């Protein structure tokens, strides 16, 4: 859900249901790296409501598009983390000394 004005599309607050710090803080981080973002922050209006509000003010682009890009970037980062992790685990497995190897016994 988007709360913004009809005349100014560069500043909006987005309400995400059933989300919390997990997603909001991560996307705040990616959005703050975007040079088009003038301001970005999030809040949880009440701890017993299952929602977060994400506020975005941009330097000229539509807030909605910028938010979408923020999520897109987050997704790409996640994918990169996942492939790197899988590779690291595979590397570890190949280099791991065998459990049954006993160096001391002749």
């Amino acid at each position: 859900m988007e709360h913004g004005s009809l005349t100014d599309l560069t500043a909006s607050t987005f309400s995400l249901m059933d989300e919390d710090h997990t997603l909001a803080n991560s996307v705040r981080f990616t959005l703050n790296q975007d040079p088009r973002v003038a301001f970005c922050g999030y809040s949880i209006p009440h701890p017993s409501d299952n929602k977060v509000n994400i506020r975005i003010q941009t330097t000229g682009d539509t807030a909605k598009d910028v938010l979408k890009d923020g999520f897109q970037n987050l997704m790409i980062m996640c994918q990169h983390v996942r492939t790197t992790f899988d590779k690291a685990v595979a590397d570890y497995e190949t280099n791991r000394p065998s459990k049954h190897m006993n160096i001391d016994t002749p």
Partner: protein
Amino acid sequence: MPKVSALDMPDVPMGQLPEHLQLQRSRVVCKADAPIHLESFCKNFKLEVIRLTEDEIEFDMIGIDASLANAFRRILIAEVPMMAIEKVLMVNNTSVIADEVLAHRLGLIPLNADPRLFEYLSENDSPNERNTIVYKLDVSCRKGGPRMTVKSDQLKWLPNGSELEMTPPNQSAKPKSYTSFSCSQDSMPEFSKKPLGVKHEDIIIAKLGPGQAIELEAHAVKGIGKVHAKWSPVSTAWYRMLPEVVLLKDIKGDDAEKLVKKCPVNVFDIEDLGNGKKKAVVSKPRACTLCRECIRGVNEELVELRRVKDHFIFTIESAGALPPEVLFTEAVKILEDKCDRVISDLS
């Protein structure tokens, strides 16, 4: 940083700031949380597995922001699904442990079932072989015999579903069981090789005195840790930033010996400089617990304790059903799914 009086700076020309302040004024220092681009993230992100056992993993994540590391941790604890006992049908319980306490204890037993092979049981679904696992516990203690301990290995998996029958609404109706399995779970290829038992066979469920008995049926379903901690797939998942211990001045001789002795986890070591001279060096900063023992009292100006902001030492302890490396991949996938969902909502 050493303290310098504002009036006593011979090397700073009049009207200018000291070098470090000048730098702060004129430059943005690009730390991990300052603007970076996706490309440089991909280039600089590093991951190294330190230790991997059946139910524990430790790895270093370098070049990532705390917000993401924390998101992974939060998802691991609260949002990666698991199977756990949710419903207990009591037939008989004459033990000293109350029904609800017993049901709670059963819920917390880790099951050896891969949650990815199951679906969520939603409110108007009937329990079937795709979303429910049924266990039976039928134990009794012989009259006149010794007391007995009921352990988790006495929970028996019922691949054919519930054996209890619901009271029919009227006399003529055919009695129905509490689950409606269309086929036996052990005929399904994914479960036929690996029976859906409990992870640990030696968890004490209850103790029975002579003449006491417990008979019950337990239904396990899929859920997430946010709803109840029994569905949390990890014992715990945590990270810490890499400690960095810096000696600001050379510490020599007896002082060095004293410093080495002070640290309970042996972060420091002695370097021999020849002809009886010794110097303290930092040899194992990673082991530092930041207990601050080494800077207590005398050494405050000599030792500085820091943490590397974008280097996370991540540890995951699995509760059993899935190996820890799979849990992490699942957690990252969940974050991706969340993004995906919001993007499609926005379009």
